[in-house]
């Protein structure tokens, strides 16, 4: 089983990670981060396989992936 | 410039003497591009760099060449590029970057007739470009003007020490005649000195092993950062003005007329001064060697109130403006110059002064 950690304050809200997650486990938050943008949020730990697609495409190295 | 006790002598052109001076100073990186009248310098370096295990690159342009020198200097090497007037125009951006990044380098301009493509005859019409800055921004470079093959070698060697001392580019300003003429020079026996300055350059980019990474750049966008750099640079240029002024005087002690000339023009003027002395016109020569920093005080000290000054240049009159700044009395300052690569003669200078002395 996998898990990811998103450093939400570094996120610029580009949402690329959302589109590449095979199991659609990332959504944009309703709240704003310190940068004043909606940031990516990891919603469901159970189905994450630790494939790291999200981390690979993240332009700001905001995501760490655990397995 | 130390006077050598000649252990051995070489008959050599000014161009090649300049190259030898670089090799002697431990220069181990040269990038150049062919342009008359300094081709022999580039060719000489292509031979010598291989002999001393240095790097020679014939670049695709003078502009690429100065940027290769920039890279070599970033890596800590003593590096040189040489060209002639049009090629030096192409290097101005690079020279501004070298100064802005506080990088040492030696640039040699063997001047030719301009503007535009001009001709391949000797000229001194790049004085402004060299001393007032041909590139952008508040930067200065020390400029030495040799007047012999010996000085072409010695000043080039010296230029590397000045460049490293201040971490700033230095220019040797010669001309086509100096480059092409051949004279015996004294070469002290010492073999090629190694580039012993290299290991002292902690700022160089050599890979951040055992230290924090170095960054060498001149883009400073944050509020006040560029101003801070410029203030630092101005202090450095002030030091250069204090320590690096060089000039030569010849029979100026009792002179009623002082010729001010550098490079080849100074040699012709020296002969004219001797000739005038025979005609009882006390004439002397003041020869600036460092064109920047210009020897204002030394020149001013020759003014005994009624002394007349004739500036002789192979141009429309550029250094004459610095002579005016030094002496501050226009009516006693006159100019004689030849344009477009024409060289003034002894007779012309003598006649000019005979009329002045009336």
């Amino acid at each position, binding site marked *: 089983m996998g898990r990811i950690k998103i450093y939400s304050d570094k996120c610029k809200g580009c949402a690329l990670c959302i589109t590449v997650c095979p199991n659609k486990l990332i959504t944009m938050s309703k709240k704003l981060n310190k940068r004043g943008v909606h940031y990516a949020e990891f919603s469901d730990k159970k189905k994450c396989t630790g494939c790291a697609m999200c981390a690979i495409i993240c332009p700001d190295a905001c995501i760490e992936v655990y397995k | 410039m130390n006077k050598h006790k000649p252990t051995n002598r070489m008959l050599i052109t000014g161009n090649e003497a300049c190259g030898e001076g670089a090799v002697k100073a431990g220069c181990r990186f040269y990038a150049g591009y062919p342009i008359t009248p300094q081709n022999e310098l580039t060719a000489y370096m292509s031979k010598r760099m291989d002999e001393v295990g240095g790097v020679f690159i014939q670049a695709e342009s003078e502009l690429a060449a100065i940027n290769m020198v920039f890279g070599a200097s970033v890596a800590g090497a003593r590096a040189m590029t040489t060209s002639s007037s049009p090629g030096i125009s192409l290097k101005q951006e690079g020279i501004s970057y070298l100064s802005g990044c506080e990088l040492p380098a030696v640039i040699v301009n063997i001047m030719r007739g301009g503007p535009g493509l001009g001709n391949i005859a000797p000229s001194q019409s790049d004085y402004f470009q060299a001393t007032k800055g041909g590139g952008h921004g508040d930067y200065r470079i020390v400029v030495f003007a040799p007047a012999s093959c010996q000085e072409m070698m010695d000043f080039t060697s010296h230029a590397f020490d000045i460049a490293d001392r201040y971490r700033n580019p230095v220019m040797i300003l010669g001309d086509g005649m100096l480059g092409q003429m051949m004279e015996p020079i004294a070469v002290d026996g010492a073999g090629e000195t190694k580039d012993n300055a290299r290991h002292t350059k902690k700022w160089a980019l050599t*890979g951040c092993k055992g230290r924090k*990474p170095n960054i060498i750049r001149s883009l400073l966008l944050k509020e006040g950062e560029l101003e801070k750099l410029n203030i630092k640079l101005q202090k450095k240029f002030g030091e250069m003005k204090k320590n690096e002024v060089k000039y030569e005087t010849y029979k100026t002690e009792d002179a009623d007329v002082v010729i001010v000339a550098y490079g080849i023009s100074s040699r012709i003027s020296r002969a004219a001064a001797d000739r005038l002395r025979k005609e009882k016109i006390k004439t002397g020569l003041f020869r600036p060697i460092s064109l920047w920093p210009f020897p204002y005080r030394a020149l001013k000290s020759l003014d005994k109130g009624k002394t007349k000054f004739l500036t002789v240049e192979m141009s429309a009159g550029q250094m004459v403006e610095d002579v005016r700044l030094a002496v501050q009395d226009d009516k006693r300052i006159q100019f004689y110059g030849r344009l477009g690569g024409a060289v003034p003669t002894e007779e012309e200078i003598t006649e000019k002064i005979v009329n002045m002395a009336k």
Partner: protein
Amino acid sequence: MEKIVFKKPESLREITTHYCAGCGHGIIHRLVCEVVDELGVRENVVAVAPVGCAVIAYDYWDFDVTEAAHGRTPAVATGIKRVLPDRLVFTYQGDGDLAAIGTSEIIHAANRGENISVIFVNNGVYGMTGGQMAPTTVLGQRTATTRKGRDSGRDGFPLKISEMIAVLEGARYIERTSVSSPKEILKTKRAIKRAFEIQIHNEGFSMVEILSMCPTYWGLAPLEASKRIEAQMVKAYPLGILKQ
């Protein structure tokens, strides 16, 4: 027992970059650092940043970096590499730096077979200066200087610089990849690693052209921008190995 399988590479500094949201530079900066870490060469690298959006790459990379005048990056890298042949020297350049003002320098560095690596980020516009046309802007593409779309009659054709360089004998390895999707990003990383290895083995000039997205000046959301790479840019700039 849980273990970490993906994290920020060591040689990529902690700070958030100035790049716009969804800009490909951020990804490529990270890939370069991942390769530097994996090859264990951080302390051996001397990089040359261009003039363009990536000019302040030295704020993000934790190794020696200098900055070249616009377009002169390959010449600066030549000087560095010739003086320090056993260091890993690479340039990181945009399409304006490499394929417009620096065309002469890149061609001659490749033609001399300089043992350097070039990371060439092609996003088809001038980002730093506000989205003007670049040599690699595709026909019909609107930019600040091609309001009605690039028109070959006035603006010439998209420049295929990598194909031009690939015919040079001095060029040892040229590949074009993209960062439009995780799959392509991993291919890009492999290409960068291959280029650095070629340099380490002294085999000559290597260059990786990376099609990248500029959401801001393409006027697209990041996702649409990465789709546009595959829909439009790849047509003008086919991916694959051009020389090895």
